[in-house]
């Protein structure tokens, strides 16, 4: 009984080979399978723990046996198949739950073997940048720069329209700008109208006509430089008055 206790799967077979019950060089699989199953029942009868490994060997042997009886070559393929569980004719008094319990144990061993590391894995799975890649980027950059240029020009024009931010350079540029000429004409028309009823006009009045202070001021500077008007201011930062140039 103690001897049986130690037996586990392949050890049973090895012991038979040692004792001469089985010829390891000429194994009669059908006979060995039957012997193995008998042993299995013996273990079961003695109420000993049936390990998953033992059950697994039994299943493999049964599969091989049934293949041989069917005239198939059992060694053609790895004898692992879903047929294990339902194909063998284990005695009725085998508790089904026991089988599952054992398969579970068996299988947890095989679960780890279910995955194999691939040997196709490689480090550094990137390539060098080609000149072609670089040139593609340059083209994109060109596009971005062109867009930025267009955007900057548009922004400049928008800024000039209100003249809220300007530098001396901007003003010089404006002198040649057709846009400022339009503003001057517009201002002159406004002034002509205002001068019909008034002789002196305050700068703020011009803004009421829709011009912003800065635009109006710049246009006034140009008009004054062309001697169409006089600008009068008593003190710095005080109100600015526009007087019609006489003569």
């Amino acid at each position, binding site marked *: 009984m103690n001897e049986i206790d130690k037996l586990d799967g392949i050890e049973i077979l090895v012991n038979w080979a040692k004792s001469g019950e089985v010829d390891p060089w000429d194994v009669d699989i059908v006979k060995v399978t039957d012997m193995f199953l008998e042993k299995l029942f013996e273990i079961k009868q003695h109420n000993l723990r049936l390990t998953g490994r033992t059950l697994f060997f039994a299943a493999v042997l049964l599969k091989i046996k049934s293949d041989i009886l069917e005239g198939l070559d059992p060694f053609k393929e*790895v004898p*692992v*198949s*879903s047929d*294990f*569980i339902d194909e063998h004719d284990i005695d009725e008094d085998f508790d089904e*739950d026991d089988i*599952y319990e054992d*398969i*579970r144990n068996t*299988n*947890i061993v*095989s*679960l*780890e*073997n*279910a*995955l*194999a*590391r*691939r*040997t*196709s*894995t*490689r*480090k550094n*799975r990137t390539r060098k940048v080609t000149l072609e890649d670089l040139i593609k980027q340059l083209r994109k950059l060109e596009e971005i720069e062109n867009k930025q240029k267009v955007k900057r020009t548009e922004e400049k024009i928008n800024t000039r329209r209100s003249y809220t931010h300007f530098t001396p350079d901007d003003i010089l540029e404006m002198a040649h700008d057709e846009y400022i000429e339009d503003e001057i004409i517009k201002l002159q028309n406004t002034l002509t109208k205002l001068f019909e009823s008034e002789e002196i006009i305050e700068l703020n009045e011009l803004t009421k006509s829709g011009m912003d202070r800065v635009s109006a001021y710049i246009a006034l500077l140009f008009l004054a430089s062309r001697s169409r008007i006089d600008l009068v201011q008593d003190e710095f930062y005080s109100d600015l008055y526009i007087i019609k140039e006489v003569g």
Partner: protein
Amino acid sequence: MSLKARVEATLFTTGKALTIEEISEIVKAPNEDLEEALLELIMDYSSRDGALEIDDEDGYVIQVKEEYFDIVESLMPIEMSENALKTLSAIAIKQPVLQSDLVNIIGMGVYDHINYLLGKELISKKPKGKSFMIKTTTKFNEYFKLTGDTKTLAQILDIQSKN
């Protein structure tokens, strides 16, 4: 430029198992020609005494022969406990699989394994009902493959989760 060489360049560059259809899309050649080229390529590799071979078990891939696995392992080690590996196997076999089902199969330890495997980018999980749907990632496929009779394993796992 032979088709065989173009196929070789493709397999070398992608570094993962490709189907005939995928190769066909890259090298723009009909399947029949490809099959011939692949067969020739496999024979070329097997006739050499080199470290590389072409595996055609689950798609075509250039890989290092098993006998040089120690080199692959030393250059790209994956450290994993046996239990985490068990969980990863179960996921690979049953995917897409609910986290709650994995708990039934493996036990409570699964939560730790899942977090570990997520960190290694070998699996991904998405909320599904009150649990999470889990599957393996592209990185998993680069590093691992299922061996043996997956169908049997899946069936046995089914029995386990029913009990």
